[in-house]
Every structure is written in C-alpha cells, then in structure tokens.
C-alpha cells in the first residue's frame, strides 16, 4: 500500500507513563534473573538439596544410628523436630547470600548490569528486582528442605504447621534473605567470596538458632544477647513458632518486626551500594 506523494506515515507507539515503564523494567529484570536461574539449575538444585540433606543426614540419621543421638535416646525426635525449621531458615539465608550475593558480585565485576540500568526506570528498579528474584529462589530452596527432612531422619519429626504464621513468616524471611544478598553483593568483591563464607555465612549459621532455640541459650546470656543481631535467628525462631507445637520461641511480634526491619535496612544498604557501583 502506498500513500499519495510516496510519503510514509510516521508510526509511533504511545508513550508509556513512568510508572508503567518502571513496572515493565522491573518484570523484565525479575524474568531475566529467573531465566539465568533456569539455565543454571544444575548448580542451584544440588546446592539447595545437598546442604540441608547433609545436615539432616548427620544430625538426625547418622548420630542416632551410631548411638550418639543429639538430645539423648529419648530426646532425639524432639531435636529432629526443632532442627527442621532451623534448616529451612538456613537454606533460605544461604540462597540469599550465595545465589543473590555471589552472582551480583560477579555481575557487578563483569559490568553485566549496564543494560538493565539503562532501562527507562530508576536504577533502584534493577536492585529491587534482584531482591524479588532472590526471594523466589530462597522460597524454592526452603520448599526443597521439607521432603529431605520428612524422609531422611531416623526418628519421627513431629511438625504441626500453624498456617497463618507459616505463610507470613516464610515470605518475609525470603525477602529479608534477598535483601541480605543484595547488600552483601554490593559490599564484597568477587575475590572475597571465600571471606564471605568464613566471616559472614558460617558464624551466621552457627549463631542463628539453627541447631537450638534462642530460649535455650539462657545459661549463656552474653551469647543470647549477641545473637539478636543475627537475622537468621529471627527466621529460625519464626519458622519454629510456625511449625513446632509447645516450643518456647521469640515473640512473633518481635520476629515480624525485626525481620521486616532487617529486610528494609538491608534493602536500603543494597540499593545504595548497587547505585554506587553502577554509576562509577
């Protein structure tokens, strides 16, 4: 079809509002990260399965079988039950630190993020998308722990899920883990990856109420107070409150409040670091 005089009519898409453009960029960033995860499943799945499987295997299967059950012969089942929410929290935070944090370090180092920060949206959009994609990965990692912990232990695991608490604590923990990954990814450099493991992840997991309840630290008040600075503590205690009946745990108001506070604080630190990295 031709027009009179051979002129070609100009076509132009209707301009998008800034909000719509930001939303489109945000979705694209999340989908992009999930696509990368899809391509890297051969790394994600083994790491998500192996770590909790090893912890559950050694503490709740091997130890009882060799006559050294944690908590004694009669307390082994109770220990297995208390351990499960701790390991779920552990998987969530490790997914945040290593899947989000380590990958972000590598992307920042390789300057792979330029395309995303050129999108017609605030720079923070790409950073927030990292948190959301990380939270989704942490959620999948958390789900994977349950079948591992249900069928592997030599003792019964007596889990009684309080659904309203579980369905609110779990996403909040995943978001906090994504925020932590973003913050650490901008604070550390790729070559300091081993440092991230030995200085951050390992102390965090040993002092995050994964293997014991916060309440049981009462005989050591210095440690009981010090571990309150650890976000993993609130994830473990919150998930324990959501899944184990008759266990003393931190007040849920404290768990929700502090986890939300950590998520916001770490997101602010992460977004600030992200902006600093991509603008310099």
């Amino acid at each position: 079809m031709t027009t009179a005089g051979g002129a070609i009519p100009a076509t132009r898409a209707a301009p998008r509002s800034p909000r719509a453009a930001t939303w489109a960029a945000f979705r694209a960033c999340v989908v992009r990260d999930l696509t990368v995860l899809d391509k890297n499943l051969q790394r994600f799945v083994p790491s998500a399965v192996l770590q909790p499987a090893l912890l559950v295997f050694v503490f709740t299967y091997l130890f009882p079988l060799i006559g050294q059950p944690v908590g004694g012969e009669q307390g082994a089942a109770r220990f297995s039950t208390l351990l499960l929410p701790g390991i779920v929290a552990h998987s969530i935070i490790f997914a945040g630190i290593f899947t989000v944090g380590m990958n972000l370090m590598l992307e920042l180092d390789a300057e792979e993020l330029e395309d995303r920060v050129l999108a017609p949206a605030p720079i923070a959009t790409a950073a927030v998308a990292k948190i959301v994609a990380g939270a989704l990965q942490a959620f999948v990692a958390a789900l994977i722990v349950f079948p591992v912990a249900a069928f592997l232990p030599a003792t019964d695991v007596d889990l009684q899920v309080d659904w309203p608490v579980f369905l609110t604590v779990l996403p909040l923990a995943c978001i906090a883990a994504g925020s932590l990954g973003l913050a650490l990814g901008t604070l550390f450099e790729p070559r300091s990856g081993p440092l991230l493991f030995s200085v951050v992840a390992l102390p965090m997991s040993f002092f995050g109420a994964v293997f014991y309840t916060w309440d049981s630290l009462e005989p050591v008040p210095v440690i009981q107070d010090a571990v309150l600075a650890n976000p993993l503590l609130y994830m473990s205690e919150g998930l324990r409150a959501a899944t184990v009946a008759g266990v003393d745990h931190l007040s849920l108001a404290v768990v929700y409040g502090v986890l939300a506070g950590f998520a916001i604080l770490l997101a602010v630190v992460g977004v600030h670091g992200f902006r600093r990295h991509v603008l310099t």
Partner: protein
Amino acid sequence: MKRLGAVVVIALAGFVAALVQFDNAAAGSCMEEPDPGSSHSAAFAAPVDTGQESQVLLLSRDGRPVSGAHVCLSTEMEGMTGMGMSADAREVAPGRYEVPIRFPMPGTWEVTVAVAREEGAAPEVAVPMKVDVKSSGMG
C-alpha cells in the same frame, strides 16, 4: 523457563508429601498444648532423680484413679526447650503408670501428660505438671 517450572512443581509436590508424612508422625506423638483447667491430676509416685531409668505416674480424675487410658508424657526442661522428650506409659496398676523416661539433668522440668481413651485416639486432655529433678550423685 520450563525446567525451573518443573523444579518448582517437584519441590511443591515434595512439600505436600512431607506434610503428609509429618501428619502421620504427629499421630504417634503426644506433644500437646497443656490444659491447666482439667479435672485430671497427675504426679510422680516418688521423688525423681537423674539416675532413674523409669518413673511411676499416678493419674486420677476428681480423686479417682484413671484406669485403662493411653498415657503419654512429653517433657521439656524449664528454659531449655531443646531438652524435650516423650514416651508412652504402661499401666501397672489401676491409676499407676510406668513411664520409661529418664531426666538427664537436675532442675525443674515441665511435663505434659496426654491422656487418651485408647492407643491411637486423640488425647482427651493434656495435664501439665512440674517436676523438681534431683541429681542422683552418680555423675
């Protein structure tokens, strides 16, 4: 993202299967929220120390011995929730139940006595009690 979708579906299926497994395990456990207003009362027949491998529990309702019930004890050391145990009791005389449970540390223990009409039935009541466990002096 088909592979990722498949992993999510498998993880969800595993999660559901795990919940079913946990439900089955919970059916054989006696961890219950205690019911302080119950007309049942429970007490150990003798002072408890860390050297005893089993205890004798006296269970009554409105002052009368409760016989023929399925009784299960769960314990928790005060201030140390990781020290919990649970065990089924065996009736040795009307209202007297032997519980194969040893308290490994001296101190105050919170005990919940779950009482069911028969084995496998849901507990009708969970009676709370506190026990002051002495050291047996055997290390």
